């Protein structure tokens, strides 16, 4: 089980998928010759050649739209949108074309494409380079949304996303690229829609995904020192999301906090909170808590960004409030 960086795991998943299936192609801004703005696609041009690995002009709408068209015509394109903030330009291609084609053409075709998009703050990159917009895509029937929180999941979920016949938004986190974790010698795909118990615990459940998994695990460590055993559920995908695993965990702990980096209001956590509050009605020991970014654009200055984005501290505090006697 060698230690692998998150970015290297993605790179390996791309390479393995391209080796396994000639239909898999890669394109995006600076992904080929320069090896990707975050060096995630390094070496793939040399391995698979310029027919299958291409730099594009700065044309996000056409990148996403061409991916949809290519998927309709026999390719399995994996495209990169350099920052999730620029997914704004891909909305029509994704929402009106890719997401609907299988359904609205009566099941004649599928649209096996993956859009990789790094989200998240922590780099002081400011309001237009830090957003977490996955809730938009989760609201769109026909799209899947995957958010790996560690290298093994990044590998396994990307393989599954590329194999998937549906358009998948594959959300990476800029802050995770350098993080390390174990990756098996022969890693397997990870099913989309299956959460993972990242840490078992009996007192409270934290449901989370992406970079917030690590924060939640650190919060759980801190809480354990106070005698609070927190179960951490890594959703791994938010559309579909693994309701059964979440309900099972909450059924045991009777306390739920949801943690993500995106703004809380109208975020992914709202759906989970609404669903669990209804389905576990009367069995919860405390109201479902939500931890997310403050309701504001992600500010630039270090102190502002730190105050805006949630982290270990906020998650631990939320769990402590769950444990407080009503």
């Amino acid at each position, binding site marked *: 089980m060698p230690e692998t960086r998150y970015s290297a795991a993605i790179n390996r998943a791309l390479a393995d998928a391209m080796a396994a299936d000639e239909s898999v192609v890669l394109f995006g801004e600076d992904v080929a010759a320069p090896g990707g703005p975050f060096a995630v696609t390094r070496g793939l041009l040399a391995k698979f050649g310029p027919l299958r690995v291409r730099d594009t002009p700065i044309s996000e709408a056409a990148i996403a739209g061409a991916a949809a068209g290519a998927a309709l015509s026999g390719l399995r394109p994996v495209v990169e949108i350099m920052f999730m903030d620029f997914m704004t330009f891909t909305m029509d291609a994704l929402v009106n074309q890719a997401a609907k084609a299988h359904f609205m*053409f009566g099941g004649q075709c599928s649209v096996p494409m993956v859009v990789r998009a790094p989200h998240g703050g922590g780099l002081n990159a400011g309001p237009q380079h830090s957003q977490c917009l996955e809730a938009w895509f989760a609201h769109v029937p026909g799209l899947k949304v995957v958010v790996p929180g560690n290298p093994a999941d990044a590998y396994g979920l990307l393989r599954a996303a590329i194999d998937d016949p549906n358009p998948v938004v594959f959300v990476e986190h800029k802050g995770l690229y350098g993080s390390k974790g174990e990756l098996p010698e022969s890693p397997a795909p990870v099913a*989309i829609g299956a959460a993972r118990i990242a840490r078992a615990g009996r007192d409270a459940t934290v449901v989370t995904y992406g970079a917030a998994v690590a924060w939640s695990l650190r919060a759980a460590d801190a809480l354990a020192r106070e005698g609070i055993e927190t179960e951490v559920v890594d959703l791994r995908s938010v559309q579909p999301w693994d309701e059964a695993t979440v309900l099972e965990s909450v059924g045991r702990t009777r306390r739920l906090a949801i943690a993500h980096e995106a703004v809380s209001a109208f975020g992914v956590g709202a759906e989970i909170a609404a669903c669990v509050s209804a389905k576990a009605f009367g069995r919860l020991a405390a109201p479902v808590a939500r931890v997310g970014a403050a309701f504001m654009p992600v500010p630039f200055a270090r102190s502002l960004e730190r105050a805006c984005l949630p982290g270990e501290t906020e998650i631990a505090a939320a769990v402590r409030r769950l444990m407080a006697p009503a």
Partner: protein
Amino acid sequence: MTQAPLLLELYRRMATIRRAEERLSKLFADGEVPGFLHLSIGQEAVPVGVCAALERGDTVASTHRGHGHALAKGMALEGFFAEIMGRASGVCAGRGGSIHVADMSIGMLGANGIVGGGLPLATGSALAHQVKGRPNVAVAFFGDGAMAEGALHECLNLARLWQLPLVFVCENNGWGEFSPHERQFAAKLAALGAAFAIPYEEADGTDVEAVAAAARRRVEPARRGEGPQILECRTPRWRGHYEGDPQKYREPSNLDAARGQDALALAAARLAAQGVDAEALGAIERAITERIEAAVAAARAAAEPDFAAAVAGVYAEARAHA
């Protein structure tokens, strides 16, 4: 000059589109067609001429005014009518309707409710042909109104950079909805093509032989790997933007001028000069009408779409993973 048999076949295809859309107009008026209905009556020479230059493996991305593209590419009338009438037997199982008729088995990637929406799809389809080494081209049909969308610019550029086997076909009917083209777009497509060094040709969109010849001249270099091509066809808009549009914004003279350009009449006159008599055309028309009536009857008899199947049809089924 084209031999009569070919022109006759082109006539037959144009007449099929015309009669099918006339029938739809009637069905719409009678409440048998839900939703919006955009007819291409008067414009038949463009899809028929262009598709005459295509092969089955070639792909076509269409527009909201896509009936002609669908039928010219080879969509069967049964699935076509059933779809537009909202039946389970429709080519899209009644989920798409007029604006989304599609048939992947013949490379018809769908009519499209998004103006300019077909441009990136065709670009991607051309990319697939290129990567897979297929001897095929993709065609992006778009209206003059779509020229103003940024998608045109991005796709012209991408197609040229990658020398994709892609033919941009503009159906310039002079109108984008309720506004004339001149008030919507300040450039000529020819000049845009020149700016990107993409070969451009204009054809008379009322003359199916001229369109077919020009389409061959554009499709073949694209097929040979010489990169994208542009074909612009001026074509008349006979009807309102959609059925029910009273066209108050339109001068009667403009409408008259449009109605004066009749691709079917022009082809019929040429056929007559070549010795194909009215009798022969009449027989063709009767056969078309019979097929259309059969398709309408079948659609009427067909089941309503199944809601449970639709609910289950949002996602394509994924392979199982550990």
